[in-house]
């Protein structure tokens, strides 16, 4: 008999623990409250319950038709075996709330009516009831056919339970039944999954309400994860994740040593120890499971998600190293979802340093550094971009110097005091020893306080920070070095999945951000690297083409920008003029192609290098002005607007350069040794730009885009009135973005201006505003009227021209006719 019972337990839905009956009253009270509070909901549930009852009745009827005999036999046996058990098993189902997958907790509010049935029924029906609940919750919707199949499945279970009966039936049943049985087997698996799902929900809720009491059921959850099919085990993993996330403490658990185990401890301590060790083992098993599943493609995302969430939630807990390891392995995954998850986790680790005190940051950064090293810089850019969310406390560096001095002073002071004491009371040894004791205890207390408090030692913090920094810069320099290494060109190595220099862009961004933390000794090397990357080789022997041809224009522009940022951040020491980078920019402007390269980068370069720089060579400024003007002739509205804004900045800053706007060529004494403008010179200071005139502005003032044309004509009038207020507050970047937005909506023929054009124009008197007032509305009206007028005049002119042409042709024709006539007359 006992054997049979066990068998049943294997097959049957997982029974609830039998400790609950007293709770039932409580819960039903809650239920009542709940029903009272939410009348509508209760009504809804009761309605559903009546349906379920009717369904039950039907099912029983069905079953009777199909396999009356077996059912009855089983029932009678069941009743004789474990009627009390049934009741225990049935009631708690109603007593406990069920947490659905979407996280809502359902209390079963009207269990009485079904209870009556259930008490009379056996487990098959409780399973059915479970299904109904599932249906009510919207977890599963069954068609008629499925329902029927399920009923058959029930029968099948009944068969399993009563083995002898099944045997008897097998003899009797036809072959058709065997086929049916096979189908049922499949279906029963589904059934079991359903059961497991509910079990998971139950355990999960129980765990969350009382983690200490139910810690053992973690193992059961793990078991469910292991033997369920894919959907169920994913659910299991997720519910375990939710549970662990809530119950894991914020600190590390240290398992008691043997010595400690041997000691006699109180009941509470024992309990806590048991709890902790169970938690730890379960956690370990869970992690192992996750690690194993992480390698299975279909489970990978779930496993990674779980790992990331765990790491993010509890960076201080045990086994974080293995968690970090897994995250690291996937940080440059080609799967976007996984990579995003990992990167976000690491970012949150970096930003929430308070949670783990910085140790994890160091570990992570070092791991990333190793990863970059191992993969030879062929990783996804995201994996280095996470460094950008690091933050360094700069105050940490300075006050440390002062502190030790003060300490020393204090000590001296103390010693002095003591000496004084000694002098005062030379004979009193007792007092002296007492004082010593006091100071000793004070120190002890202080040390204990330091250990207990979470506040870290400043020294420790400093160490962590410097470690992090060194790893970060190690990585950056490695990437730069890698970008500089000449490519083995002979063998056409396939370029990695992330492009040729995937890490360069984030690396440059990072250097730009953290450049103020670089030691001055590294600065020279860094600048050299950047210079060579930007395209100018230091050693003349080496052809610069070697590097520059490999990097795209945007990348090279970025190098220039970063160099300027680095210099700017360290400007306090010396004002250094970055000639080489200017030369690079001067040439890069020519190489820019709108579709291929990023206009934003170019605009940023203009902003950083030309607008923000305080001082310029006169020659260089002039050369840049000339080049920007020719550049803006060749490209779209956005680029030329950015160029024009920069040009204006330059003209405003360098008064002498306004000579370019004058009409006669040749800058006089300023033009230096170069008498003629050389447009192809690669060095801006040798181009002799002062010898030329900005004739481009005249062309640009007829630009199809109204704001570009007004800008150009505005610039050309700079010399006439020096103190005009210009739009100097707009940066080239802003202009570029504005206009590239414009580009999408702008149609060249439209007579109307867009709103932001209006804004731009508001700053300066428009050329046609002589007729209209300064008001923008007036301006609009005048503008439309003028355009109409111009159109009219244009039409009239055109008309006249056509007419003249017509007359001329007529005249010609007439002359021809006369000529022919005369000819004829002559021939006659």
């Amino acid at each position, binding site marked *: 008999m006992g054997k049979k019972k066990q068998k049943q337990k294997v097959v049957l839905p997982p029974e609830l623990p039998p400790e609950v009956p007293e709770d039932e009253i409580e819960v039903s009270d809650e239920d009542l409250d709940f029903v009272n509070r939410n009348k509508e909901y209760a009504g809804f549930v009761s309605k559903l319950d009546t349906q379920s009852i009717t369904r039950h009745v039907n099912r029983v009827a069905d079953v009777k038709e199909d396999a009356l005999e077996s059912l009855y036999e089983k029932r009678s046996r069941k009743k004789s075996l474990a009627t009390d058990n049934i009741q225990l098993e049935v009631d708690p189902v109603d007593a406990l709330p069920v947490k659905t997958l979407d996280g809502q907790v359902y209390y079963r509010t009207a269990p009485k009516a079904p209870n009556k049935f259930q008490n009379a029924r056996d487990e098959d029906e409780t399973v059915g009831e479970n299904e109904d609940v599932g249906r009510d919750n919207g977890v599963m919707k069954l068609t008629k056919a499925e329902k029927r199949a399920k009923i058959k499945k029930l029968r099948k279970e009944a068969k399993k339970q009563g083995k002898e009966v099944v045997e008897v039936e097998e003899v009797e049943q036809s072959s058709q039944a065997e086929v049916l049985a096979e189908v049922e087997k499949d279906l029963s698996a589904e059934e079991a999954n359903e059961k497991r799902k509910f079990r998971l929900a139950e355990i999960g809720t129980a765990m969350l309400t009382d983690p200490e009491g139910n810690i053992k059921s973690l193992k059961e959850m793990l078991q469910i994860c292991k033997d369920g099919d894919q959907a169920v085990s994913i659910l299991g993993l997720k519910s375990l994740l939710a549970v662990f996330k809530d119950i894991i403490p914020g600190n590390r658990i240290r398992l008691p040593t043997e010595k400690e185990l041997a000691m006699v401890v109180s009941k509470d301590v024992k309990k806590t120890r048991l709890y902790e060790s169970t938690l730890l083992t379960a956690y370990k098993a869970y992690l192992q499971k996750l690690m194993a599943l992480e390698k299975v493609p279909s489970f990978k995302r779930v496993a990674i998600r779980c790992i990331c969430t765990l790491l993010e939630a509890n960076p201080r807990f045990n086994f974080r190293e293995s968690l970090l390891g897994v995250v690291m392995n996937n940080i440059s995954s080609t799967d976007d979802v996984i990579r995003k998850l990992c990167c976000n986790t690491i970012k949150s680790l970096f930003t929430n340093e308070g949670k783990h005190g910085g140790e994890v940051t160091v570990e992570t950064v070092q791991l990333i550094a190793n990863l970059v090293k191992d993969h030879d810089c062929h990783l996804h850019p995201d994996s280095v971009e996470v460094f950008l969310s690091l933050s360094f406390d700069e105050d940490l560096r300075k006050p440390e110097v002062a502190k030790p001095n003060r300490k020393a002073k204090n000590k001296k002071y103390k010693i002095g005091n003591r000496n004084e004491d000694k002098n005062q009371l030379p004979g009193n040894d007792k007092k002296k020893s007492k004082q010593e004791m006091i100071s000793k205890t004070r120190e002890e207390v202080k040390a204990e306080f330091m250990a207990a408090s979470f506040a870290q030692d400043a020294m420790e913090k400093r160490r962590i920070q410097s470690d992090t920094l060194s790893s970060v810069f190690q990585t950056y320099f490695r990437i730069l070095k890698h970008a500089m290494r000449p490519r083995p060109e002979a063998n056409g190595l396939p370029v990695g999945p992330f492009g040729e220099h995937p890490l360069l862009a984030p690396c440059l961004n990072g250097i730009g951000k953290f450049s103020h933390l670089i030691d001055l000794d590294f600065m020279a090397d860094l*600048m050299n690297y950047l210079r060579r990357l930007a395209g100018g080789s230091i050693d003349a022997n080496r052809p610069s083409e070697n590097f520059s041809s490999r990097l795209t224009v945007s990348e090279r522009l970025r190098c220039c920008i970063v160099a300027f940022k680095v*210099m700017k951040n360290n400007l306090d020491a*010396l*004002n250094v*003029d970055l000639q080489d980078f200017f030369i690079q920019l001067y040439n890069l402007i020519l190489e820019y192609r709108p579709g291929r390269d990023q206009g934003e980068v170019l605009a940023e370069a203009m902003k950083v290098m030309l607008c923000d720089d305080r001082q310029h060579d006169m020659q260089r400024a002039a050369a840049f002005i000339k080049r920007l003007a020719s550049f803006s002739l060749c490209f779209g509205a956005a680029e030329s607007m950015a160029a024009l804004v920069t040009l204006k900045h330059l003209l405003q800053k360098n008064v002498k350069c306004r000579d370019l706007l004058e009409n006669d060529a040749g800058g006089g004494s300023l033009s230096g*040794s170069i008498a003629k403008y050389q447009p192809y010179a690669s060095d801006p200071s*040798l181009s002799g730009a002062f010898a030329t005139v900005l004739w481009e502005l005249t062309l640009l003032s007829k630009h199809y885009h109204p704001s570009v044309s007004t800008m150009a004509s505005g610039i050309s009038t700079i010399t006439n009135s020096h103190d005009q207020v210009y739009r100097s507050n707009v940066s080239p970047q802003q202009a570029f973005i504005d206009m590239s937005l414009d580009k999408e909506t702008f149609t060249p023929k439209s007579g109307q201006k867009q709103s932001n054009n209006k804004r731009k124009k508001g700053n300066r008197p428009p050329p046609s505003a002589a007729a209209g007032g300064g008001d923008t509305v007036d301006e609009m009206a005048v503008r439309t009227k003028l355009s109409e007028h111009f159109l009219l005049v244009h039409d009239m002119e055109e008309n006249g021209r056509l007419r003249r042409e017509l007359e001329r042709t007529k005249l010609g024709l007439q002359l021809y006719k006369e000529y022919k006539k005369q000819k004829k007359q002559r021939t006659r």
Partner: protein
Amino acid sequence: MRPLDEAETTQVFEKLFKFTSNNLKNIVESPSHEGLDKNPGRYCFRLHKNRVYYVSESLVKRATNIKRENLVALGTNIGKFTKSGKFHLTIQALNLLAANAKHKVWLKPTSEMSFLYGNDVVKGGLGRITDNINAYDGVVVFSMSDVPLGFGIAAKSTQDCRKMDPNGLVVIRQADTGEYLRNQEDL
């Protein structure tokens, strides 16, 4: 007046290269628009009475008409050979160097005067400095408004300049425009 011989040419070019590095090419190859010739001639170096002159070819041709002892100077004087045979750049070369300088230093207005009196440039007087100067490179000194004031030799590289104290030497003076007043008889 005669063209430079091999040894002299190397000496002159080495000196010029210190200041101009790759731009030396411009000095040698730049076309001259003097004279009546339609196609522009070149500039060349001529030695006359131990002084080196940077002269356009057409001028050289015309100067041959004048007797050697009667010819005082021609073209631009850029330096002289000392009695021991070394070549020194003189202040007249400043125009040529400033136009083609590779390494530049800009002086603050307050320290301009000090430099023009023949003193070296200290860090405190430095307004701006080109990146990537190495020690002992030739440097052209400008005022903040880009007027060339003189030239000299860098005492420290740009990187070392950062760490120096304000009284440290940055540029060792070789010539400055104050010489036009101070030693008129020499020039």
